[in-house]
């Protein structure tokens, strides 16, 4: 290397906590924080899963659930969406994978500011508590969770008639604002660590793609979350002290409200300026994880590494200028639709580059169908599915009839619901041995995989059809036996029952995964230091699981990229990043 810079982390002693509380609860160790983030995100995700069951049961068997009326249905939709997108996916991919992977893969001892990193988790926990406290409150007071839909569009969000328009929405907005504070503290750490705290020889273009994905996604988060923060603050003011930022003059329940002159469309612009990059905040880390998984488990170098990096960067930049494709039917100027449709379709280019590169990595590779690999492959398939329906919805003229139908539901669940979850599962199966020192059970993992993968297709494929026959999303009753039995064709009703049964089965199959996590932690087969034969630095720690500080006295020195598989002249089929190059080569 040109420089012989000594990593700063080698020169400063690490703070070692003495107490149990300092080691495992208020820990500043990035690995412990990653686990805390992961467990909290999964717990809150289970709440959202149960909510989706309730909605599915209502859609298939109207009236079966006592006390689950239209208000509760709308609340469930809202909470399910918000929890899944923000408190599960964002928190897991950046909070858990970000914390675990970034320092280990960059060869750092820890995040640059471990204390801020710890605060990030605890503030996240506060936001989760504030989000969920509405359920215990429901039992004793008349506070209800907001039912505005996860997009929270004003004016209906804070107008009487929408569930939770009085206090549910306040809790939701406050929780979001606090989440953004937590994310900012974590995100600053990830970016600074990646930029300024890598080890010797770890250049930007030698970083594993997981780190690249997390890096650009975090940047997007720091740029996009402010828009959500601002809109949350403004809507809180509208609701609490009666400003009219988003509220036009409006008559509600026969009464003229005090509001006048506000701009409902402004909220949509702010929300989607956050909301669209959010898709890529979730997708880019998943891209990175999947790239690494495919390369390792196919025993072949990733095809077109540089192109993969630049595709991530290009997607990140483009994602900031496509937001209004969510608003084609909102009443904005039609020329805007033209512009945003164009930028939206351009995103398909770097995304397609990534998909082709994954496919070419698999081409004639020594593919090992391990559980992480199965999840990675299913991610690619699912992402292609969701991406192609995205091309439909990106065009104004096709989007208008499909807007607010189940086609949209199917599209975004495929592309940013199921795909990132599959990448998360793959990542967990891949890194669990390093995190705990034990392997997850392979058979249970495979059963879990097939139920999840096939199950999600069984759930979401029919929804495309429902969308084409015009079943609207977010409706409480769309089936026979409801109040409007003749509005939908009978096939829609039978498909709804079919989908609901599949959803219940897939949901229950997730218990296998939780069982696997818990059981293997105590009884699992002992893992070796590098069970998958991977090259990146996290597999080269002196201990498994890595101790506090990750490395010995000296940080590792990197001599090559993370994808040296099948290099001639070596004993093994993989050459880890810290193995020196031979003189002759």
């Amino acid at each position, binding site marked *: 290397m040109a*420089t012989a*810079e000594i990593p700063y982390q080698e020169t400063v002693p690490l703070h070692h906590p003495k107490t149990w509380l300092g080691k495992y609860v208020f820990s500043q160790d990035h690995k412990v924080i990653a686990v805390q983030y992961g467990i909290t995100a999964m717990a809150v995700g289970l709440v959202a899963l149960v909510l989706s069951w309730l909605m599915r049961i209502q859609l298939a068997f109207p009236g079966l659930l006592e006390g689950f009326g239209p208000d509760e249905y709308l609340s469930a939709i809202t909470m399910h969406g918000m929890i899944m997108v923000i408190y599960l996916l964002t928190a897991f991919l950046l909070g858990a994978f970000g914390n675990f992977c970034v320092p280990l893969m960059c060869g750092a001892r820890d995040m640059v500011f471990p204390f801020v990193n710890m605060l990030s988790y605890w503030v996240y926990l506060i936001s989760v508590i504030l989000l969920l406290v509405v359920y215990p409150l429901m039992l004793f007071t008349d506070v209800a969770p907001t039912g505005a839909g996860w997009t929270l569009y004003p004016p209906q969000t804070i107008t009487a008639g929408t569930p939770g328009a009085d206090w549910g929405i306040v809790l939701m907005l406050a929780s979001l604002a606090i989440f953004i504070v937590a994310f900012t503290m974590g995100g600053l750490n990830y970016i600074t660590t990646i930029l*300024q705290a890598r080890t010797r020889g770890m250049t930007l273009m030698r970083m594993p793609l997981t780190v690249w994905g997390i890096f650009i996604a975090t940047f997007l988060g*720091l740029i996009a979350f402010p828009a959500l923060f601002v*809109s949350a603050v403004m809507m809180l003011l509208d609701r609490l002290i009666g400003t009219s*930022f988003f509220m036009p003059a409006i008559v509600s329940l026969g009464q003229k409200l005090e509001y006048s*002159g*506000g701009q409902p469309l402004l909220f949509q612009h702010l929300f989607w300026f956050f909301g669209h990059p959010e898709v890529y905040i979730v997708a880019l880390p998943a891209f990175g994880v999947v790239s690494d998984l495919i390369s390792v488990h196919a025993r072949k170098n990733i095809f077109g590494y540089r192109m993969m990096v630049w595709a991530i960067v290009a997607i990140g930049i483009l994602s900031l200028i496509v937001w209004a494709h969510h608003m084609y039917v909102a009443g904005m100027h039609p020329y805007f639709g033209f512009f945003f449709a164009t930028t939206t379709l351009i995103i398909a280019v770097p995304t397609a580059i990534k998909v082709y590169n994954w496919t070419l990595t698999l081409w004639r590779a020594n593919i090992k169908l391990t559980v992480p690999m199965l999840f990675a492959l299913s991610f690619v398939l699912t992402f292609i599915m969701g991406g192609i329906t995205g091309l439909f919805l990106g065009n104004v003229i096709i989007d208008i009839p499909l807007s607010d139908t189940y086609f949209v539901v199917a599209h975004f669940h495929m592309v940013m619901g199921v795909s990132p979850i599959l990448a998360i599962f793959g990542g967990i199966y891949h890194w669990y041995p390093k995190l705990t020192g034990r392997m997850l059970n392979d058979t249970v993992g495979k059963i879990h995989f097939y139920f999840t993968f096939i199950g999600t297709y069984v759930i979401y494929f029919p929804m495309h059809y429902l969308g084409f026959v015009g079943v609207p999303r977010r409706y409480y009753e769309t089936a026979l036996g409801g109040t409007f039995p003749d509005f939908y064709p009978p096939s829609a009703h039978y498909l709804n029952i079919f989908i609901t049964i599949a959803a219940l089965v897939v949901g229950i199959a997730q218990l296998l995964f939780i069982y696997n996590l818990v059981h293997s932690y105590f009884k699992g087969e002992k893992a070796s230091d590098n069970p998958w034969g991977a090259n990146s630095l996290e597999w080269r720690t002196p201990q498994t699981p890595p101790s506090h500080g990750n490395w010995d006295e000296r940080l590792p020195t990197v001599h090559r990229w993370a994808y040296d598989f099948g290099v001639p002249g070596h004993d093994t089929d993989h050459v880890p990043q810290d193995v020196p190059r031979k003189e002759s080569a």
Partner: protein
Amino acid sequence: MTETTAPGNESIFTATARDWSSDVTTFKGVPWGKAMMWIFLVSDTFIFTCFLVSYMTVRMTVTDPWPNPSEVFALAIPNELFGLQFFESSIPVPLLLIAIMTFVLISSSGTMAMAVNMGYQRNKKGVVLLMVATALLGMTFVGMQIFEWSKLIIDEEVAAWQNPMGAAQFGSFFFMVTGFHGLHVSAGVAYLLIVAWRVGRGHYDHTNFEIVEITGLYWHFVDLVWVFIFALFYLW
């Protein structure tokens, strides 16, 4: 610092390539805290941008008349003081108060820059004095802002939800954006005082006093944001 830091006359492409192919740190000689502060400021910029763009959007679409800033923000020079009469009647001067406030805040950026210079000269006494001076100027700014707010609220009966002179959004945006900026200044004052105290206690003696520059980055940012708020709220 290594010898590879920033040779002056290379193209941006060469410089980028060098950054990307360098290990350990991308920005040579930049401490972690400074990098982190810059990234935080990027994020904070987007918060203020969203606030100001929202303000511009609503101001352009609102149907009620917008108050004339030259009148609303005018400060009347009193015609008498301690029983002595100067003028026939009090004279309203447009933007007088805000001109003084802006002058105070810009001056505080000057003292901050001097504090950073003192830091690199390892002159701790100078650092502490200049940072405290900066904090005092910041407090003066916030004090004058409180005066301006109370004038609007009590004399003109403007509130966040009402405005007798026209569009209610005038009060909403004014109090929200200047309030958010005022919170930034107040947090900055606390930050300055804490850092000054710690510099005085010798916490940073083993470093290059980068912390002073990092504090300065934040302070200059808050100052720069004010320029935009000033232009968009008082001059438009």
